[in-house]
């Protein structure tokens, strides 16, 4: 995974609330067996409007998306994160995210920034004409107008993003601890330890 330190550039002033994963990537795009190429399907239903943000000359390819409350609600499909990534989005700023979406985004190196509604509104306004700057190390979002918004992020996630660490690899390094737990389950709750044979 590529490390994330700063994200700079134009931002889609999107702002819609309760944008669900079917809007981010409709289900007919889920038939792929790879992660690439989903950007074309991102926000497909909105992109039938010729004046949509995502295909506008000004915003197309922006690395930041300024979204509304409860972004990414709905299904657990990770294709939503892949679609955003393929579209070029590296960070999403919103007042809140669905839990599953923000987890999926993180695992694909997309930073999800939670800020209060008024800050998000301000950023959406600035985004119409100006770039936005996100500094993960400093945990700030700033604009050319001297706006400065600090955000919280889970320290584990921050570390993984800054260093481009792969979560599976990190956990595999703890195989022994997992093995000890499995031995305990075999002794205490054998009925959970017995599975199915192939």
């Amino acid at each position: 995974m590529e490390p994330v330190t700063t994200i700079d550039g134009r931002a889609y002033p999107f702002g819609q609330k309760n944008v669900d994963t079917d809007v981010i990537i409709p289900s007919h795009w889920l038939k792929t067996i790879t992660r690439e190429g989903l950007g074309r399907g991102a926000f497909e239903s909105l992109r039938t409007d010729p004046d949509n943000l995502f295909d506008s000359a000004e915003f197309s390819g922006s690395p930041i998306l300024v979204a509304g409350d409860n972004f990414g609600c709905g299904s657990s499909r990770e294709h939503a994160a892949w679609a955003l990534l393929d579209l070029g989005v590296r960070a999403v700023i919103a007042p809140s995210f669905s839990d599953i979406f923000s987890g999926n985004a993180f695992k694909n190196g997309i930073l999800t920034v939670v800020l209060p509604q008024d800050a998000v509104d301000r950023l959406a306004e600035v985004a119409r004409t100006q770039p936005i700057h996100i500094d993960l190390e400093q945990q700030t979002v700033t604009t050319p107008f001297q706006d400065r918004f600090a955000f919280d992020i889970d320290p584990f996630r921050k570390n993984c993003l800054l260093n481009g660490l792969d979560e599976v690899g990190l956990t595999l390094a703890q195989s022994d601890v997992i093995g000890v737990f499995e031995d305990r389950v075999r002794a205490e709750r054998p009925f959970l330890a017995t599975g199915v044979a192939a």
Partner: protein
Amino acid sequence: MATTNPRTLYQKIWDAHVVERRDDGTCLIYIDRHLVHEVTSPQAFEALRLAGRKVRRPDLTLAVPDHNLPTTARRDAAGQRIAIKDAQSAQQLAALEANAPAFGIRYIGDADREQGIVHVVGPEQGFSLPGATIVCGDSHTACHGGLGALAFGIGTSEVEHVLATQTLLLKQSKAMEVRVEGDLGPGVTAKDLVLHITGVLGAAGGTGYVIEYTGSAIRALSIEGRLTVSNMAIEHGARAGLIAPDEATIAYVKGRPYAPKGADWDAAVAWWRSLATDPGARYDKVVVIDAAQIVPSVTWGTSPEDVVPITGVVPAPDSFADASKREAAAKSLAYMGLEPGQPLNAVEIQNVFIGSCTNSRIEDLRAAAAVLRGRHKAPGVKWAIVVPGSGLVKAMAEAEGLDQVFVEAGFEWREPGCSACLGMNPDKVPAGERCASTSNRNFVGRQGPGARTHLVSPAMAAAAAVAGHLTDVRDLVC
């Protein structure tokens, strides 16, 4: 971990699965059961292969295709596979068929009797157990919470993480109790109950929580009804739903193919009986609902929270206090082609879908068939299908003659799968047309581009088929 503090069901299951607790509160949680289907797994297996990684516990993993398999016949008279027309669907099925044996995972094939929707198959096979942690790359994994399992949907990177390590890194959610006291009225089902709860909490009301459903109305539900309720926990934003295992749960699990046997069974039962929330345990939030207030319910909009009683009318966007909800409601109404003030029970429908992991078990099919027996779908209903949740449900229904009831009523009787729940396979609702659907999501385009979904119970879907419009099933049968 020995503790004397009273604990919730959620806390007890959580504590029993902590492999390691980190300073920031994140826990490495052991996963007991992993269900894998064809849509969210190919990229996970691919990543394992690229990194040269193995599946840690193939024996705790079960693979079954369901999401985009066509629900038409899968084998011809000679037993030869009928090719899937959609090349991408065929490719996803082929990927799972190859990946499961390559990684040593038990695979239920597309034409096996046990095949079905992951969330129907898991409980039916005794693979899903009370007190277990269960994950699947599908958000309605919450379904298994009806058995008292901590079950939730995960993304593909997490699928990969579970395959490789049998664990997930998680932060504990808050605990909410949704207590439903009293008796459900005649004609009011588990689906109406959970639609009602979704209307009360809102689509984001459960965000950050695991919800335990309690109270006499929940206790009185069959296990299948409990699976229906827990299935939709995600529709009110919760990570998972839970219903404490009781004697009914134990009776349901007993004797199923993968259920514990012998001494293991006795140990399991003893543990399951100890899981119920202790008296005095604290929830972070409690919502109390009066079961007697619930009537057969239906959605009017494009969020599952857009619930009204069938006796009600389409709400006016102005009636919502929140500005963004007003805007969303106006958009929903435009998409749905509905006018404020329109009585729901006069809304004409052209399609009926009985199926999905919410409502495709045998009791659901019996409830729908009871309404349809001796009746026929209305002329305006162009397409009506029943898609059983599994091959075993299908066989059971056929043994009871339910398939005949459906066919005589003008329904198509299909092979098991997700079908029109998400319109990935050819089962789609045409643009601009309405569908009375027993599934769990009415999002824009969920059942096909431009499709208009009204979520209802199986009995209500059957009643709508007969009437040709949404209607109160109690007028037909009560």
